[in-house]
Protein backbone atom coordinates (compact mmCIF):
# COMPACT_ATOMS: atom_id res chain seq x y z
CA UNK A 1 0.00 0.00 0.00
CA UNK A 2 0.95 3.58 -0.55
CA UNK A 3 2.03 6.07 2.10
CA UNK A 4 2.15 9.86 1.95
CA UNK A 5 5.39 11.31 3.27
CA UNK A 6 6.14 14.91 4.21
CA UNK A 7 9.83 15.73 4.54
CA UNK A 8 12.26 18.57 4.31
CA UNK A 9 14.47 17.76 1.36
CA UNK A 10 17.46 20.00 0.71
CA UNK A 11 15.74 22.72 2.70
CA UNK A 12 12.37 22.54 0.98
CA UNK A 13 9.13 21.03 2.22
CA UNK A 14 8.40 18.12 -0.07
CA UNK A 15 5.53 15.67 -0.09
CA UNK A 16 5.69 12.44 -1.97
CA UNK A 17 3.81 9.19 -1.89
CA UNK A 18 5.54 5.85 -2.18
CA UNK A 19 4.90 2.18 -1.56
CA UNK A 20 5.27 1.15 2.06
CA UNK A 21 8.10 -1.21 1.17
CA UNK A 22 9.84 1.25 -1.15
CA UNK A 23 13.29 2.42 -0.15
CA UNK A 24 14.06 6.07 0.36
CA UNK A 25 16.62 5.73 -2.42
CA UNK A 26 13.93 4.67 -4.90
CA UNK A 27 11.53 7.30 -3.62
CA UNK A 28 14.11 10.09 -3.94
CA UNK A 29 15.07 8.97 -7.43
CA UNK A 30 11.71 8.06 -8.86
CA UNK A 31 9.17 10.09 -6.88
CA UNK A 32 11.12 13.25 -6.06
CA UNK A 33 13.40 13.18 -9.11
CA UNK A 34 16.71 13.45 -7.28
CA UNK A 35 18.74 11.24 -9.61
CA UNK A 36 21.98 12.32 -7.99
CA UNK A 37 21.20 9.58 -5.48
CA UNK A 38 22.81 6.62 -7.24
CA UNK A 39 22.16 2.91 -6.89
CA UNK A 40 25.30 0.81 -7.01
CA UNK A 41 24.16 -2.18 -5.00
CA UNK A 42 20.91 -1.58 -3.12
CA UNK A 43 22.32 -3.38 -0.09
CA UNK A 44 24.37 -0.75 1.74
CA UNK A 45 27.70 -2.03 0.47
CA UNK A 46 28.78 0.70 -1.95
CA UNK A 47 27.65 4.05 -0.55
CA UNK A 48 26.61 5.52 -3.91
CA UNK A 49 23.16 6.35 -2.50
CA UNK A 50 24.56 8.12 0.58
CA UNK A 51 22.40 10.93 1.93
CA UNK A 52 21.93 12.58 5.30
CA UNK A 53 18.81 11.82 7.27
CA UNK A 54 18.33 14.22 10.18
CA UNK A 55 22.03 14.96 9.80
CA UNK A 56 23.16 11.32 10.02
CA UNK A 57 25.04 9.84 7.10
CA UNK A 58 23.09 6.84 5.82
CA UNK A 59 22.66 4.68 2.75
CA UNK A 60 19.26 5.65 1.43
CA UNK A 61 18.82 2.11 0.09
CA UNK A 62 18.64 0.91 3.70
CA UNK A 63 15.93 3.39 4.68
CA UNK A 64 12.26 3.07 3.84
CA UNK A 65 10.73 6.06 2.12
CA UNK A 66 8.07 6.06 4.81
CA UNK A 67 10.72 6.63 7.47
CA UNK A 68 11.44 10.08 6.06
CA UNK A 69 8.15 11.42 7.42
CA UNK A 70 8.88 14.59 9.33
CA UNK A 71 12.62 14.24 8.88
CA UNK A 72 15.19 16.26 6.96
CA UNK A 73 16.93 14.78 3.96
CA UNK A 74 20.10 16.15 2.34
CA UNK A 75 21.37 14.95 -1.02
CA UNK A 76 24.15 16.04 -3.36
CA UNK A 77 21.66 18.26 -5.19
CA UNK A 78 21.51 20.47 -2.11
CA UNK A 79 25.23 20.73 -1.55
CA UNK A 80 26.06 23.84 -3.51
CA UNK A 81 24.90 27.27 -2.47
CA UNK A 82 23.04 28.32 -5.59
CA UNK A 83 25.62 28.62 -8.34
CA UNK A 84 28.46 28.53 -5.83
CA UNK A 85 29.87 25.04 -5.51
CA UNK A 86 30.74 23.60 -2.13
CA UNK A 87 34.51 23.56 -1.48
CA UNK A 88 34.47 19.78 -1.68
CA UNK A 89 32.83 19.89 -5.10
CA UNK A 90 35.46 22.33 -6.33
CA UNK A 91 38.30 20.28 -4.90
CA UNK A 92 36.96 17.07 -6.40
CA UNK A 93 37.07 18.78 -9.79
CA UNK A 94 40.52 20.30 -9.31
CA UNK A 95 42.07 17.05 -8.14
CA UNK A 96 40.25 14.89 -10.70
CA UNK A 97 38.86 12.93 -7.78
CA UNK A 98 36.33 11.41 -10.14
CA UNK A 99 36.63 9.40 -13.30
CA UNK A 100 33.29 7.87 -14.18
CA UNK A 101 31.59 9.94 -11.48
CA UNK A 102 28.89 7.48 -10.42
CA UNK A 103 30.28 7.22 -6.89
CA UNK A 104 30.95 10.96 -6.60
CA UNK A 105 27.65 12.13 -5.05
CA UNK A 106 28.01 9.56 -2.28
CA UNK A 107 31.63 10.46 -1.66
CA UNK A 108 30.79 14.15 -1.47
CA UNK A 109 28.07 13.61 1.13
CA UNK A 110 30.30 11.31 3.18
CA UNK A 111 33.23 13.73 2.99
CA UNK A 112 31.02 16.67 3.94
CA UNK A 113 29.80 14.76 6.99
CA UNK A 114 33.36 13.93 7.96
CA UNK A 115 34.68 17.48 7.65
CA UNK A 116 31.79 18.94 9.61
CA UNK A 117 32.54 16.54 12.43
CA UNK A 118 36.32 16.51 12.15
CA UNK A 119 37.72 19.61 10.40
CA UNK A 120 41.32 18.35 10.43
CA UNK A 121 41.23 14.65 9.72
CA UNK A 122 44.41 12.65 9.18
CA UNK A 123 44.81 10.64 5.99
CA UNK A 124 43.90 7.50 7.92
CA UNK A 125 40.78 9.13 9.35
CA UNK A 126 39.73 10.21 5.87
CA UNK A 127 40.30 6.73 4.50
CA UNK A 128 38.23 5.08 7.24
CA UNK A 129 35.48 7.69 7.02
CA UNK A 130 35.17 7.03 3.29
CA UNK A 131 35.46 3.24 3.53
CA UNK A 132 31.72 2.88 3.03
CA UNK A 133 31.96 4.43 -0.42
CA UNK A 134 33.30 2.23 -3.17
CA UNK A 135 35.14 3.72 -6.11
CA UNK A 136 36.39 1.42 -8.83
CA UNK A 137 38.10 4.02 -11.04
CA UNK A 138 40.48 6.17 -9.04
CA UNK A 139 42.20 3.92 -6.52
CA UNK A 140 40.99 6.57 -4.02
CA UNK A 141 44.31 8.49 -4.18
CA UNK A 142 42.91 11.66 -5.71
CA UNK A 143 39.73 11.48 -3.63
CA UNK A 144 41.74 11.47 -0.42
CA UNK A 145 43.88 14.36 -1.68
CA UNK A 146 40.78 16.37 -2.63
CA UNK A 147 39.31 15.90 0.84
CA UNK A 148 42.63 16.86 2.46
CA UNK A 149 42.80 20.00 0.36
CA UNK A 150 39.15 20.86 1.02
CA UNK A 151 39.73 20.49 4.76
CA UNK A 152 42.53 23.06 4.60
CA UNK A 153 40.43 25.52 2.61
CA UNK A 154 37.36 25.06 4.80
CA UNK A 155 39.39 25.63 7.95
CA UNK A 156 40.81 28.85 6.54
CA UNK A 157 37.29 29.92 5.63
CA UNK A 158 36.12 29.38 9.20
CA UNK A 159 38.95 31.43 10.69
CA UNK A 160 38.03 34.49 8.66
Amino acid at each position, binding site marked *: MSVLVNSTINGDNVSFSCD*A*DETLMDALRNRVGLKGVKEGCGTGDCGACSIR*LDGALVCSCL*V*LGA*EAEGRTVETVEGMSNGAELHVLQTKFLEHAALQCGICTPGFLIAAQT*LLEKNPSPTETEIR*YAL*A*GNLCRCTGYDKIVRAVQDAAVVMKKGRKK
Partner: protein
Amino acid sequence: MLYESPQTTEDAVELLSKSKGKVHVLAGGSDLLVRMKGGYIEPDVVIDIKRIKSMNTIKKTADGFLIGAAVSCARMADHQALCKAWPGVVEAASLIGSDQIQGRCTMAGNMCNASPAADSVPAMIAAEAWALVQGPRGERWVLVEKIAKAPGVTTLRKGEVVEAILLPPKYKKSGDAYLRFTPRTEMDIAVVSAAVNLTLGAKGVITDARVALGAVGPKAMLVKPAAKAIVGTTLDDAALAKLAAAAAAACDPIDDKRGTIQFRTKVAQVLAKRAAKIAYQRAGGK
Protein backbone atom coordinates in the same frame (compact mmCIF):
# COMPACT_ATOMS: atom_id res chain seq x y z
CA MET B 1 3.03 -4.35 3.09
CA LEU B 2 1.98 -2.21 6.04
CA TYR B 3 4.39 0.26 7.63
CA GLU B 4 3.78 1.08 11.29
CA SER B 5 5.71 3.51 13.45
CA PRO B 6 4.39 3.24 17.02
CA GLN B 7 5.24 5.95 19.55
CA THR B 8 5.44 3.71 22.62
CA THR B 9 6.76 0.29 23.52
CA GLU B 10 3.24 -0.76 24.52
CA ASP B 11 1.93 0.10 21.09
CA ALA B 12 4.80 -1.79 19.49
CA VAL B 13 4.06 -4.88 21.57
CA GLU B 14 0.39 -4.67 20.73
CA LEU B 15 1.13 -4.34 17.00
CA LEU B 16 3.56 -7.23 17.18
CA SER B 17 1.03 -9.40 18.99
CA LYS B 18 -1.97 -8.61 16.87
CA SER B 19 -0.61 -8.13 13.37
CA LYS B 20 -1.33 -10.90 10.94
CA GLY B 21 1.13 -12.49 8.56
CA LYS B 22 4.87 -11.96 8.53
CA VAL B 23 5.73 -9.19 10.99
CA HIS B 24 9.22 -7.71 11.21
CA VAL B 25 10.73 -5.13 13.52
CA LEU B 26 12.67 -2.35 11.83
CA ALA B 27 15.43 -0.94 13.99
CA GLY B 28 18.40 0.11 11.84
CA GLY B 29 17.16 -1.72 8.79
CA SER B 30 20.63 -2.65 7.65
CA ASP B 31 19.73 -6.35 7.61
CA LEU B 32 15.98 -6.19 7.14
CA LEU B 33 16.06 -4.05 4.01
CA VAL B 34 18.83 -6.13 2.47
CA ARG B 35 16.76 -9.26 2.92
CA MET B 36 13.71 -7.52 1.49
CA LYS B 37 15.71 -6.32 -1.51
CA GLY B 38 16.99 -9.84 -2.18
CA GLY B 39 13.46 -11.22 -2.00
CA TYR B 40 14.39 -13.49 0.91
CA ILE B 41 11.57 -12.07 3.02
CA GLU B 42 8.34 -10.37 2.07
CA PRO B 43 6.94 -8.82 5.25
CA ASP B 44 3.25 -8.14 5.62
CA VAL B 45 3.94 -5.65 8.39
CA VAL B 46 7.07 -3.72 9.29
CA ILE B 47 7.12 -2.08 12.72
CA ASP B 48 9.57 0.80 12.90
CA ILE B 49 10.67 1.27 16.52
CA LYS B 50 12.76 4.38 15.94
CA ARG B 51 10.01 6.77 17.00
CA ILE B 52 9.69 5.18 20.44
CA LYS B 53 11.34 7.61 22.88
CA SER B 54 12.39 5.02 25.46
CA MET B 55 14.20 3.10 22.76
CA ASN B 56 16.15 6.14 21.64
CA THR B 57 18.22 6.99 24.66
CA ILE B 58 21.39 5.92 26.40
CA LYS B 59 20.86 6.11 30.17
CA LYS B 60 23.54 5.75 32.79
CA THR B 61 21.98 4.13 35.85
CA ALA B 62 23.21 2.41 38.98
CA ASP B 63 22.78 -0.89 37.11
CA GLY B 64 24.91 0.27 34.22
CA PHE B 65 24.27 1.69 30.78
CA LEU B 66 20.81 1.17 29.38
CA ILE B 67 21.06 1.50 25.62
CA GLY B 68 17.76 1.82 23.77
CA ALA B 69 17.10 -0.68 21.01
CA ALA B 70 16.83 2.07 18.39
CA VAL B 71 20.07 3.82 19.33
CA SER B 72 22.40 3.75 16.36
CA CYS B 73 25.95 2.51 16.78
CA ALA B 74 27.16 5.93 15.65
CA ARG B 75 25.43 7.49 18.65
CA MET B 76 27.07 4.97 20.97
CA ALA B 77 30.46 6.01 19.64
CA ASP B 78 29.61 9.64 20.47
CA HIS B 79 28.76 8.79 24.12
CA GLN B 80 31.94 9.50 26.05
CA ALA B 81 31.13 7.78 29.32
CA LEU B 82 30.05 4.64 27.48
CA CYS B 83 33.21 4.65 25.40
CA LYS B 84 35.31 4.97 28.51
CA ALA B 85 33.53 2.20 30.41
CA TRP B 86 33.12 -0.33 27.61
CA PRO B 87 35.66 0.44 24.89
CA GLY B 88 35.50 -3.13 23.58
CA VAL B 89 31.74 -3.09 23.18
CA VAL B 90 31.75 0.31 21.52
CA GLU B 91 34.57 -0.74 19.18
CA ALA B 92 32.64 -3.87 18.27
CA ALA B 93 29.52 -1.85 17.56
CA SER B 94 31.62 0.62 15.57
CA LEU B 95 32.98 -2.12 13.33
CA ILE B 96 29.60 -2.95 11.83
CA GLY B 97 29.63 -1.85 8.20
CA SER B 98 30.59 1.69 7.25
CA ASP B 99 29.88 5.13 8.67
CA GLN B 100 26.69 5.01 6.61
CA ILE B 101 25.64 1.74 8.23
CA GLN B 102 26.72 3.07 11.63
CA GLY B 103 24.23 5.88 11.22
CA ARG B 104 21.45 3.31 11.18
CA CYS B 105 22.41 -0.02 12.68
CA THR B 106 21.76 -0.83 16.33
CA MET B 107 23.23 -3.35 18.76
CA ALA B 108 19.78 -4.72 19.54
CA GLY B 109 19.18 -5.25 15.84
CA ASN B 110 22.58 -6.87 15.46
CA MET B 111 21.66 -9.23 18.28
CA CYS B 112 18.14 -10.03 17.06
CA ASN B 113 19.43 -10.71 13.56
CA ALA B 114 21.08 -13.72 15.22
CA SER B 115 24.00 -14.01 12.86
CA PRO B 116 26.92 -15.98 14.30
CA ALA B 117 29.20 -13.29 12.83
CA ALA B 118 27.44 -10.30 14.43
CA ASP B 119 30.19 -7.99 15.63
CA SER B 120 28.63 -6.52 18.74
CA VAL B 121 27.31 -9.77 20.17
CA PRO B 122 30.56 -11.43 21.39
CA ALA B 123 31.54 -8.12 22.97
CA MET B 124 28.18 -7.89 24.73
CA ILE B 125 28.43 -11.49 25.88
CA ALA B 126 31.90 -10.89 27.29
CA ALA B 127 30.53 -7.79 29.02
CA GLU B 128 27.73 -9.90 30.52
CA ALA B 129 25.10 -7.69 28.95
CA TRP B 130 21.37 -8.24 29.39
CA ALA B 131 18.54 -7.59 27.00
CA LEU B 132 15.35 -5.98 28.30
CA VAL B 133 12.54 -7.76 26.51
CA GLN B 134 9.01 -6.37 26.47
CA GLY B 135 6.11 -8.59 25.56
CA PRO B 136 2.41 -9.12 25.94
CA ARG B 137 3.07 -10.61 29.39
CA GLY B 138 5.27 -7.77 30.58
CA GLU B 139 9.01 -7.42 30.68
CA ARG B 140 11.75 -9.96 31.21
CA TRP B 141 15.53 -9.78 31.31
CA VAL B 142 17.53 -12.16 29.17
CA LEU B 143 21.30 -12.61 29.01
CA VAL B 144 22.51 -11.60 25.55
CA GLU B 145 24.01 -15.04 24.90
CA LYS B 146 20.55 -16.54 25.34
CA ILE B 147 18.89 -14.43 22.63
CA ALA B 148 20.22 -16.19 19.53
CA LYS B 149 19.22 -19.80 19.17
CA ALA B 150 20.57 -20.66 15.74
CA PRO B 151 21.57 -18.66 12.66
CA GLY B 152 18.70 -16.22 12.07
CA VAL B 153 16.57 -17.66 14.90
CA THR B 154 16.03 -16.08 18.34
CA THR B 155 14.40 -17.17 21.58
CA LEU B 156 12.04 -14.18 21.48
CA ARG B 157 8.38 -15.15 21.66
CA LYS B 158 5.46 -13.90 19.60
CA GLY B 159 4.77 -10.27 20.40
CA GLU B 160 8.10 -9.66 22.11
CA VAL B 161 10.47 -6.86 21.28
CA VAL B 162 13.84 -5.90 22.75
CA GLU B 163 13.53 -2.47 24.32
CA ALA B 164 17.10 -1.97 25.46
CA ILE B 165 20.45 -3.54 26.21
CA LEU B 166 21.97 -3.20 29.66
CA LEU B 167 25.72 -3.09 29.98
CA PRO B 168 26.82 -3.51 33.61
CA PRO B 169 28.60 -0.66 35.36
CA LYS B 170 32.31 -0.50 34.79
CA TYR B 171 34.11 -2.41 37.53
CA LYS B 172 37.34 -1.05 38.93
CA LYS B 173 40.47 -2.44 37.29
CA SER B 174 38.53 -4.07 34.53
CA GLY B 175 38.88 -3.82 30.78
CA ASP B 176 37.32 -5.25 27.66
CA ALA B 177 38.38 -5.67 24.06
CA TYR B 178 36.94 -6.99 20.84
CA LEU B 179 38.84 -8.04 17.72
CA ARG B 180 37.58 -9.51 14.53
CA PHE B 181 39.30 -10.81 11.46
CA THR B 182 38.25 -9.51 8.06
CA PRO B 183 40.26 -9.53 4.83
CA ARG B 184 39.41 -5.87 4.26
CA THR B 185 39.86 -3.09 6.80
CA GLU B 186 36.19 -2.14 6.65
CA MET B 187 32.90 -3.13 5.03
CA ASP B 188 33.31 -6.76 5.86
CA ILE B 189 31.72 -9.53 7.88
CA ALA B 190 33.76 -11.13 10.67
CA VAL B 191 35.41 -14.35 9.56
CA VAL B 192 36.28 -14.96 13.20
CA SER B 193 35.94 -12.72 16.23
CA ALA B 194 36.91 -12.72 19.88
CA ALA B 195 35.94 -10.60 22.87
CA VAL B 196 37.57 -10.59 26.26
CA ASN B 197 36.44 -8.82 29.42
CA LEU B 198 38.53 -9.17 32.52
CA THR B 199 39.06 -7.76 36.01
CA LEU B 200 42.35 -7.57 37.87
CA GLY B 201 43.11 -8.09 41.53
CA ALA B 202 46.33 -7.43 43.36
CA LYS B 203 49.60 -7.58 41.45
CA GLY B 204 47.83 -7.72 38.15
CA VAL B 205 46.35 -11.16 38.71
CA ILE B 206 43.16 -11.73 36.76
CA THR B 207 40.33 -12.39 39.18
CA ASP B 208 37.47 -12.64 36.78
CA ALA B 209 37.15 -13.02 33.03
CA ARG B 210 34.67 -13.67 30.28
CA VAL B 211 35.73 -14.75 26.82
CA ALA B 212 33.39 -14.92 23.84
CA LEU B 213 33.96 -16.04 20.27
CA GLY B 214 32.02 -15.22 17.12
CA ALA B 215 31.68 -16.89 13.71
CA VAL B 216 33.09 -20.19 14.89
CA GLY B 217 29.78 -21.89 15.59
CA PRO B 218 26.07 -21.52 14.89
CA LYS B 219 25.96 -18.56 17.28
CA ALA B 220 28.31 -16.32 19.20
CA MET B 221 29.37 -18.21 22.31
CA LEU B 222 30.64 -17.68 25.80
CA VAL B 223 33.74 -19.86 26.25
CA LYS B 224 34.07 -20.58 29.96
CA PRO B 225 37.20 -22.79 29.74
CA ALA B 226 38.95 -19.94 27.93
CA ALA B 227 38.15 -17.60 30.79
CA LYS B 228 39.25 -20.22 33.28
CA ALA B 229 42.58 -20.49 31.48
CA ILE B 230 43.51 -16.93 32.34
CA VAL B 231 41.85 -16.39 35.73
CA GLY B 232 44.47 -16.49 38.44
CA THR B 233 47.27 -15.56 36.02
CA THR B 234 48.99 -12.36 34.99
CA LEU B 235 48.39 -13.29 31.37
CA ASP B 236 51.83 -14.78 30.94
CA ASP B 237 52.75 -16.83 27.89
CA ALA B 238 51.60 -20.06 29.50
CA ALA B 239 48.21 -18.56 30.28
CA LEU B 240 47.91 -17.23 26.74
CA ALA B 241 48.74 -20.65 25.34
CA LYS B 242 46.04 -22.22 27.52
CA LEU B 243 43.60 -19.52 26.45
CA ALA B 244 44.35 -20.28 22.81
CA ALA B 245 43.93 -24.02 23.35
CA ALA B 246 40.61 -23.51 25.11
CA ALA B 247 39.43 -21.20 22.34
CA ALA B 248 40.43 -23.72 19.70
CA ALA B 249 38.62 -26.49 21.57
CA ALA B 250 35.43 -24.44 21.62
CA CYS B 251 35.51 -23.74 17.89
CA ASP B 252 32.99 -25.58 15.77
CA PRO B 253 33.04 -23.54 12.56
CA ILE B 254 32.02 -24.32 9.01
CA ASP B 255 33.82 -24.02 5.69
CA ASP B 256 32.20 -21.29 3.66
CA LYS B 257 32.87 -18.45 1.27
CA ARG B 258 34.35 -16.40 4.09
CA GLY B 259 36.80 -18.87 5.58
CA THR B 260 37.76 -22.46 6.22
CA ILE B 261 37.41 -24.52 9.41
CA GLN B 262 41.17 -24.65 9.71
CA PHE B 263 41.62 -20.92 9.20
CA ARG B 264 38.86 -19.94 11.59
CA THR B 265 40.15 -22.24 14.32
CA LYS B 266 43.69 -20.94 13.96
CA VAL B 267 42.75 -17.29 13.87
CA ALA B 268 40.27 -17.61 16.76
CA GLN B 269 43.26 -18.47 18.93
CA VAL B 270 45.28 -15.55 17.63
CA LEU B 271 42.45 -13.10 18.20
CA ALA B 272 41.61 -14.43 21.65
CA LYS B 273 45.22 -13.89 22.70
CA ARG B 274 45.45 -10.44 21.15
CA ALA B 275 42.10 -9.33 22.61
CA ALA B 276 43.09 -10.63 26.04
CA LYS B 277 46.30 -8.60 25.91
CA ILE B 278 44.41 -5.42 25.03
CA ALA B 279 41.79 -6.02 27.75
CA TYR B 280 44.53 -6.73 30.26
CA GLN B 281 46.22 -3.46 29.42
CA ARG B 282 42.95 -1.55 29.59
CA ALA B 283 42.34 -3.02 33.03
CA GLY B 284 45.62 -1.51 34.12
CA GLY B 285 47.78 -4.60 33.83
CA LYS B 286 51.26 -4.42 32.39
